[in-house]
């Protein structure tokens, strides 16, 4: 992960206080195993890289790395449930459940999530609780630091009118 992404992560986590407690705990523990992510790297290379790119940055299909990408998929369930139905286009929904879990583990790792000792399992209730924004930046949950210097002036990036405001939530 680049320093710039780390800096973004710090700022990001500070603004996601509501999700931080669960996510920090999850990030500390790790939600997938190292072996799973290693297997996922091979699975990604054979099934995904042709379009999503060797570095998961596209451009022939959307990037799978980035804090905005993680925030958009929202939870591990959001990421898994998309991929396991729609991907890869040459065999949509036709990989083994285990292989989808491995590829998700690899994507999480490439986004900065820490491996733990327990593999990711297909447990929808648990996966819905795992915030991608937080688990992919585990250091932020434990040491939020608003004053960390940013490698690029992220503060100049315009934000949504509602950014920073507390919005209604069903959770």
């Amino acid at each position, binding site marked *: 992960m680049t320093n710039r992404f780390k800096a973004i992560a710090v700022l990001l986590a500070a603004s996601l206080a509501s999700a931080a407690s669960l996510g920090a705990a999850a990030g500390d523990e790790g939600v997938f195993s190292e072996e799973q992510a290693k297997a996922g790297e091979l699975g990604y290379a054979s099934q995904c890289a042709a379009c999503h790119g060797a570095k998961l940055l596209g451009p022939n299909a*959307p990037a799978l790395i980035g804090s*905005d990408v993680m925030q958009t998929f929202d939870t591990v369930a959001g990421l898994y449930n*998309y991929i396991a139905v729609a991907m890869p286009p040459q065999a*949509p929904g036709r990989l083994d459940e285990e292989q989808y879990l491995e590829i998700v583990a690899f994507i999480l790792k490439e986004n900065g999530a820490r491996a733990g000792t327990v593999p990711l399992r297909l447990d929808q209730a648990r996966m819905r609780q795992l915030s991608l924004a937080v688990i992919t930046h585990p250091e932020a949950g434990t040491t939020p630091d608003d004053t960390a210097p940013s490698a690029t002036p992220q503060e100049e*990036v315009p934000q949504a009118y*509602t950014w920073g405001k507390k919005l209604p939530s069903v959770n």
Partner: protein
Amino acid sequence: MPQPFRRALPLLAICLSISGIPASAQGEERDYAPVTDELIANPPAGEWPSWRRTLDNQGYSPLDRIDAQTVGKLQLAWAWPMADVGMQETAPLMHDGILFLQTNNNIVQALDARTGDLIWEYRPALAKIPAEWAYQPYQARRQKNSIALYEDAVVLTTVDARIVVLDAKSGKVLRETQVLDTNKGYSYTVGPLVVEGKIISAISGCSIPGTAGGCYIMAHDFRTLKELWRVNTLDDPANPKVGESWGEVPPGNRWGGTPWATGSYDPRTKLTFWGTGGPGPYAELIRGSGDGDVLYTNSTLAIDTETGKIKWYYQHLPRDNWDLDSPFERVLVDIQDKGKTRHLLISVAGKNGIFFALDRDSGKYLWSKDTVFQNSVTKIDPDGTVHVNEELILKALGQEVTICSSISGGKLWQAGAYSPQTGQFYVPLTEACNAVSATQTKFTAGGTVGSMKFGPRVLPEGISDAGLVEAIKIGTRKDENAGWKVRQRAIPTSSLLTTGGGLVIGGDAGRYAKAWDQKTGEVLWQQRLNAPIGGSPMTYELDGEQYLVIPTGYSASAGSIASAFPEMPLPSGTGNSIFVFKLPRQ
């Protein structure tokens, strides 16, 4: 101008000066008849000089040698691999025996239209952006759908937000201008139209954070490349309704309104017609715009090309909450009604697939009809007021609703075609839904402002065929009994072409190029090729022979809903190519 970009410019200029590479023997230059305003307005029957052949965007060729009786005899004349990979949405043009082919990253090739021999190739040096701005290059690769021919030049708009004018005979750069700052996120993804000395273009990238508050349709002088006027689709001080429609949201927090398809032009009124995409962020919960209509998103804008003033606008989908862009081709059709000529603008304007007929002089709504299954709009009043489905408007983070059509359509960039022979408009469509929920997302440079989680595309309940080609009878009133629908498993993935031979030609994700009977929808010919049929099929005639060009290649549309037709797996190779067919010599 940011420093890195300023530093890159001199290098860029050097590269550009050497980028036109003549491929013809001994570098000989052939004769080339200039493309005049008269030719663009009324092209010779055998030519295809503009994106949809004519500036009314009809996508119709009067050529009739290939017809219901002969289409089954088509043979491959030649084929050609495109110069780059990536989403394939090309729209070849043909003038004076040269086929002009633009592919991703603004590579333009001039080919001998008879033989497929390369005459010249232009490869631009494009400005670099940081790799982690990943959404920007992905987005900018979309819809490289057209270039324009004018006088002795090829006019192209680039992924790094420049207008470049090439010598049509050599591919050498004649002049260029940096229109907007690509480091903010701006890119051109659709080609310009050139009329009466004005290059009319529309920028993309308006859903990238750095472009906040400005999304433009612009005119530049063809000779000097000086800007003549611009229309901002997100802000209009001359119309207080625009500001009101965004509620408390100031221009600096508005995104979207992207004109994703090349506009049409009516020389009678000198009006140009452009469609716009939806607002960003996608959900009003995140956008902060309350129940406002967020003008001029999802609208048709009629702009006076002389002054740059908006003459009228019509909003096809107010208060969009689901990323159901409405920017697709605006088609101009004149019909006779009770002894009078009526000047219509017709369009399946947006992803939700609703067809609209408007009076193009006044913007007055005439009628509309659903095509694919959709649940975003509940009612359209006789005065054209569109009512959205408020039950599907997201009220809270974590709430999920299923919206039909999906983010991938319904309708997408693949253009429909009108036939004056039948008075019908033929449209390629997809039956699909997806779950959506709003996310509170911090924007990053080069990222997206969507702030929405999408589920995978799924078929609507009770529908097993994702693909639909629909023929819609055009008139001043809806005729429920006219037209036809042809359904199939694989979705159509190319624009359609109508011909004087009574055919509708296009193709699908299952790699079949097809010709349908305009009157009945019967499939008269099909040919399986190497990859999903893509881009815009076109036709031309030389030496008494009619050629049919079918582009193929990587299709993001197909990939988005491949799970609906798993029995026809998509190729993992890209295969971007054109296949050129003609009839055997008699």
